[in-house]
């Protein structure tokens, strides 16, 4: 009864605040769309210089997929390399192929090298047969966005729920309405539960829309079931919600809440698998397993990329729910500051 009243009130407030509602739904959609365009754009066409390539080789190779410039000597090629007219050039010294790269942009380096290697396979000493590649998960079509996507989806849900729940709880404190709530017979766990349910409903709608958009409009890879995806996102948003409310008790105003973003939210991105976790220095790697996003990202990737089901993700979901329960208990303890019983 009291929880329901609080839930209804929160929903009314959110529906009335059109801008926040817009931010919850359209901001993630906008950012995900931009990322989609950035990561899934056309492949880079390397600009390659060839210096005194033997005719035999030049005729026998396919020089497509790159902008080719021919040079008569290495000095001209080097000049163009300095002027960034070309990304790299291939020359022969003592009969061996040597590659020079401009080198300041890793993406260009990679693309240039890859092009040279695949084009000049036959001038290497032991030309390999073309290898047949089989994918356990994913495919050769899988873009970077498909790999980052699940993490980003989780991140945006986490980010926006964290901020909105935290800020609205701060408002409750600074306007004195929290004190007023506690001067009624409402119990502390009822307040926390009302918040969780109210915002839970909002995030359920929000994440359905965002997930459906990324999968069906942006065409993100989706091998598993949409239901499991929602289940993971919902568990994650409970965590974000309870953590947001908890953190808000350490902030005195909205601005101080925003200050927690670089401390609490952003670091999670680095440990959630956006970057390879095995390359993180040992003295930092313990951070990953204590951040909620780490588990959510893993579970989301299991469902979206690997097509796994309940047996592979239940552990992560329980960990997320465990986080939520822990934060809820801490919230109830934090509320003791306002009323002992």
């Amino acid at each position: 009864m009291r929880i329901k009243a609080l839930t209804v009130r929160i929903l009314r407030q959110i529906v009335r605040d059109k801008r926040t509602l817009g931010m919850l739904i359209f901001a993630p959609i906008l950012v995900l769309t931009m990322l989609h365009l950035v990561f899934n754009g056309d492949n880079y066409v390397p600009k390659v210089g060839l210096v005194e390539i033997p005719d035999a080789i030049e005729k026998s190779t396919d020089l497509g997929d790159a902008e080719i410039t021919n040079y008569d000597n290495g000095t001209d090629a080097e000049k163009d390399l300095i002027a960034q007219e070309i990304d790299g050039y291939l020359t022969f010294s003592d009969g061996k192929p040597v590659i020079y790269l401009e080198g300041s942009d890793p993406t260009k380096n990679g693309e240039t090298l890859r092009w040279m290697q695949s084009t000049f396979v036959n001038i290497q000493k032991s030309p390999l047969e073309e290898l047949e590649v089989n994918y356990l998960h994913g495919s050769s079509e899988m873009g970077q966005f498909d790999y980052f996507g699940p993490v980003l989806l989780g991140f945006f849900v986490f980010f926006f729920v964290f901020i909105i729940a935290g800020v609205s709880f701060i408002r409750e404190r600074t306007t004195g309405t929290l004190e007023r709530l506690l001067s009624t017979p409402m119990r502390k766990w009822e307040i926390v539960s009302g918040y969780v349910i109210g915002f839970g409903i909002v995030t359920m709608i929000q994440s359905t829309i965002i997930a459906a958009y990324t999968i069906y409009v942006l065409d993100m890879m989706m091998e598993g079931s949409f239901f499991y995806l929602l289940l993971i996102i919902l568990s994650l948003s409970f965590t974000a919600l309870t953590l947001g409310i908890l953190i808000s008790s350490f902030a005195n105003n909205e601005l101080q809440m925003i200050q927690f973003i670089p401390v609490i939210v952003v670091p999670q991105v680095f440990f959630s698998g956006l970057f390879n976790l095995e390359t993180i220095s040992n003295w930092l790697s313990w951070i990953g397993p204590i951040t909620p996003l780490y588990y959510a990202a893993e579970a989301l990737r299991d469902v979206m990329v690997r097509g796994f089901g309940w047996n592979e993700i239940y552990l992560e979901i329980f960990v997320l729910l465990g986080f939520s329960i822990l934060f809820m208990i801490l919230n109830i303890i934090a509320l003791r500051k306002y009323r002992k019983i």
Partner: protein
Amino acid sequence: MNNICVSVKNVTKQFGKHVVLKDINLDILEGEIFGLLGPSGAGKTTLVKELSGLDTPTSGENTVLGQKMPMLNVINRIGYMAQSDALYEDLSAKENLQFFSSLYGLKGIKQQERIREVMKLVDLTDHINKLVFNYSGGMKRRLSLAIALLHEPELLILDEPTVGIDPVLRKKIWDAFYQLNEKGTTIIVTTHVMDEAEKCDRLGLMREGSLIAIGTPTELKQDTHSSSIEEAFLVYGGEVNED
């Protein structure tokens, strides 16, 4: 009529080394309007917060309606109005009232009835569907009072209910208090306005965390041979006066 409604026994409150309440002893009787008078920082708010269950004493104990505070079922019988208005400005007055009345377990027709009654009492019936954001300061104050009255509390605790309110409106609010008082509601009201103090049945004068005198306005004036409460306050408080 003379049962004890609120009993404060040897109550001291400390925040760190700062002593906010010093050994307060006080009995408030059922059906009276009791005023706590004193300058800001005297400890009035801390004391009424303890009586409404929002704070606990460092030592000593508060008994309200026969039970030691804080106690949830007693909180249910108290109406508390804080110094700040504590309203949801993005909701309408009606939605605020619906929300708070549900917290007290009022629903359906009973809820609608009570909402109508309290809004009539504070003279806001015509503005019930407006967003609180569009309310004036005085209207917010009265809505806040209306919310405290929703569940027909036996004890009403009001922290500076008329601060920043013009005399006409203040009279209206006091008329509402008298109406409730006639029906038997005990009212505790804090104030630092001396002329408001005259309207109470009994007064407690507070200064720097101590209760320096208790009595009816007339008694307090007679005791000190003063013509006003303000003078009486100065006599009880010694020569030092600060506000």
